[in-house]
C-alpha cells in the first residue's frame, strides 16, 4: 500500500506515544486490520490528506461552563489516551500533526450542553479528551445543520461519485470520552454540510454503571468516514446509539463501529438507519465483541439500509465475537428497497407513487432520529426529498 511514507517519516511521535509506539502505528497503516476495516474507503488517500492538512493546534473553541475546565493534555494529570493504534493508526497521525491535544475536565454536571465545533475543512484538530467525573452528566453537541429557511438542501458541488476525499478538503477529529463510574454522557452530532469530507474517531471508555448515548445523524454528499469505538469497561456500563444517515447522489459514507463488552452486565443498544440514494456508497460495519469476563452482557444491534437506486451500493457486515456463554446478543443487518406492503397501503389511500416513496424514505430516516437534533434533522431530510 502506497501510504505517503516519506511524509510520515518527517512526523514526530505525539507526546503521549513513545517512538516505538509511533513506529507500530505507522506500520499498522499497512497492516491486515487496516486492510479489513478500510475495505470500502481509501486509507492511503485519507492518511495522505491528514499528513497535509492544516494542523489545528489551538484549544477547541468551546464555551466552557464553570463546571468544566480546559487543560493541555500533556500538562494534565490524565493518563495517556487509550486508543488502539493498531486499529486506528490515523489517530496517531492526527496527534503527530496537531499536538498532544486537550482535556475538558467535567468535574460537576454542567447546566448547558457543551458545543464542540467541528474542525474547518482541510484541518486536522488536536485530539480532545472529555473526562466526566463520577456521577456527573454531560451533554456534548456538534452541529452543522442547514439553515432552517425552508430552502432545499444545497446540492453537493461535485458531480458524480465522490471517489475519494480531495486532498485539500479533508477534516479530521479525534474525540475521546472517558466516563467515570455512574457518569453519563450524551453525544449528539448533526452533519449536514453538503460536501463535507471528514474522517473522525469517537473513542469512549465507560466505567462501572456509566451510560453513553450517541445520536449521530447526517446527510453525506461528499466523503464521511466515522470510526466509533466504545469500550464498556465497567460492570453495568451501557451504550445506547440511534442514528440515521442519508447518503446522497455522489456521496460516500463509511461507518465502522466497534463495541466492546469488557465487563459483567454491560448493555448495548444500537440502531442505525441508512438510506443510499442515487449513485452512492454506504457502508456500515457493526462489530460486537464480548470479552471473556463479560457474563450477562446484553447486546442488540440493528442496521437497516435502504437502497433507493439500483446504482446505490450498500455494504453492511455484522460481526460478532463472543467469548462468553452467558450473554444475550442480537445482531440484524438488512438491505432492501421500500417496503411493498407499506407502499401499497399509501397508494390505496390515494397518494401518488412518488409521494408514497418520499414519505416512506423520510419515515425510514426519521425512525433513526433521536436526541436534541432529531427535529431539525427531520426537517433537513424533508428538505432533501422536497428538492429531489
Amino acid at each position, binding site marked *: 500500500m502506497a501510504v505517503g511514507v516519506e511524509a510520515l517519516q518527517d512526523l514526530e511521535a505525539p507526546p503521549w506515544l513513545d517512538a516505538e509506539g509511533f513506529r507500530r502505528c505507522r506500520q499498522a497503516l499497512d497492516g491486515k486490520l487496516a486492510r479489513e476495516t478500510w475495505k470500502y474507503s481509501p486509507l492511503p488517500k485519507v492518511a495522505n490528506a491528514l499528513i497535509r492538512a492544516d494542523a489545528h493546534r489551538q484549544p477547541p473553541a468551546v464555551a466552557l461552563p464553570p463546571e468544566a475546565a480546559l487543560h493541555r493534555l500533556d500538562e494534565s494529570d490524565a493518563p495517556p489516551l487509550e486508543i488502539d493504534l493498531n486499529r486506528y493508526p490515523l489517530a496517531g497521525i492526527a496527534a503527530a500533526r496537531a499536538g498532544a491535544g486537550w482535556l475538558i475536565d467535567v468535574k460537576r454536571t454542567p447546566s448547558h450542553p457543551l458545543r464542540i465545533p467541528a474542525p474547518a475543512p482541510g484541518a486536522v484538530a488536536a485530539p480532545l479528551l472529555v473526562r466526566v467525573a463520577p456521577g456527573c452528566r454531560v451533554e456534548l453537541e456538534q452541529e452543522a445543520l442547514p439553515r432552517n429557511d425552508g430552502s432545499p438542501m444545497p446540492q453537493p458541488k461535485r458531480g458524480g461519485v465522490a471517489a475519494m476525499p480531495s486532498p485539500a478538503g479533508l477534516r479530521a477529529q479525534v474525540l475521546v470520552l472517558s466516563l467515570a463510574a455512574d457518569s453519563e454522557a450524551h453525544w449528539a452530532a448533526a452533519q449536514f454540510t453538503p460536501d463535507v469530507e471528514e474522517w473522525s474517531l469517537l473513542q469512549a471508555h465507560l466505567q462501572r454503571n456509566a451510560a453513553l448515548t450517541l445520536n449521530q445523524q447526517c446527510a453525506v454528499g461528499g466523503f464521511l468516514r466515522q470510526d466509533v469505538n466504545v469500550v464498556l469497561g465497567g460492570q453495568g456500563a451501557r451504550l445506547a446509539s440511534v442514528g440515521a444517515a442519508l447518503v446522497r447522489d455522489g456521496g460516500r459514507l463509511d461507518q465502522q463501529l466497534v463495541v466492546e463488552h469488557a465487563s459483567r452486565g454491560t448493555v448495548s443498544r444500537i440502531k442505525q438507519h441508512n438510506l443510499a440514494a442515487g449513485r452512492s456508497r454506504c457502508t456500515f460495519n457493526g462489530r460486537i465483541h464480548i470479552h471473556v469476563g463479560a457474563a450477562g452482557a446484553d447486546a442488540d444491534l440493528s442496521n437497516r439500509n435502504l437502497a433507493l437506486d439500483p446504482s446505490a451500493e450498500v455494504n453492511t457486515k455484522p460481526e460478532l465475537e463472543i467469548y462468553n456463554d452467558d450473554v444475550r446478543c442480537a445482531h440484524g443487518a438488512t438491505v432492501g428497497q421500500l*417496503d*411493498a*406492503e*407499506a407502499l*401499497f*397501503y*399509501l*397508494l*390505496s*389511500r*390515494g*397518494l*401518488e*407513487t412518488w*409521494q*408514497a416513496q418520499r*414519505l*416512506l424514505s*423520510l*419515515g*425510514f*430516516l*426519521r*425512525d433513526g432520529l433521536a436526541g436534541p437534533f432529531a427535529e431539525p434533522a427531520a426537517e433537513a431530510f424533508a428538505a432533501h426529498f422536497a428538492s429531489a
Partner: protein
Amino acid sequence: MSLLAVDGLRADVNGKPILKNLSLRVEAGEIHAIMGPNGSGKSTLANVLAGRPGYEVTAGQVSFNDADLVGMAPEARAQAGLFLAFQYPVEIPGVSNMEFLKAAWDSHLAAQGAQPESAVGFMKRARTLAASLGLNPEFLKRGVNEGFSGGEKKRNEILQLLLLEPKLAVLDETDSGLDIDALQTVAAGVNRFRSADNGVLLITHYQRLLNHIVPDQVHVLSEGRIVASGDRHLAEKLEAEGYAWLSE
C-alpha cells in the same frame, strides 16, 4: 348504473386461481355483507378491487361508477372513491398518522382539482373524528399504526374512511379482534359513513356485526364464487348452522 359491478371475475394470486367466476352488484345506498369460510377468497376480492400488486384479473369485468377498474393504478382507484379497510393494517414507523392522513386527503383534493385544505382545519377535523372513534389525539402524532393494538388499528381504518369520504368502502374483517365497545364504535362509524350516495362491502365472519350494521344483502363466498345470496336472515342461518349445508 351500479356503483360496483363485478361480472364473471376470475383472478389469480401469484399465478394461483382464487376467484372463479364471481359476479356481484352494489348499488349506491346499499350495504352488502360477504361471508364465507377461511380461504374462500374474501380478502382476495377486496385486494383485487383495490388493485394490490400480485393479484391478476384473468377474466371478467369490474366497473366502478362506470369506470373500468381493471388496469387502473391503486392510487387512481382510491382517488376515484374506492376505499379498502385492510384486514391487517400496515405499520409505518417514522411517518406520523396525521401527516399520512393529510397527504391522503390532499391527494384526493388534488385529483379533483380542488385547493388543499388548510393544515389547521384538517387537523381539527381529524382530531374531532378520532375522538368520536374513541382514539386519543395522541394516536395522530404516533407513527402510522405503529404499536397500535389490533382494535386501535381497526379504529384507525374507520377514521380514514370517515376522513376520505369514499364512494365505496370495502371493509375486510374490520370487526375481527374488537371488544364489544370497540365493535359498537366501529359500527357507529360505518353507519355514520353510510348514505344514499355511497356503498359498503362488508367482509365479516360474524353475524353480531350485522346486528349493528344492517346489510341489504348477504352473500356467501366459497372457493372463489358466490354460492348463496339473501337478506340478513341468511347470516343468522349461517351463524346457527355453519357453511356445511351450502355444499350439500
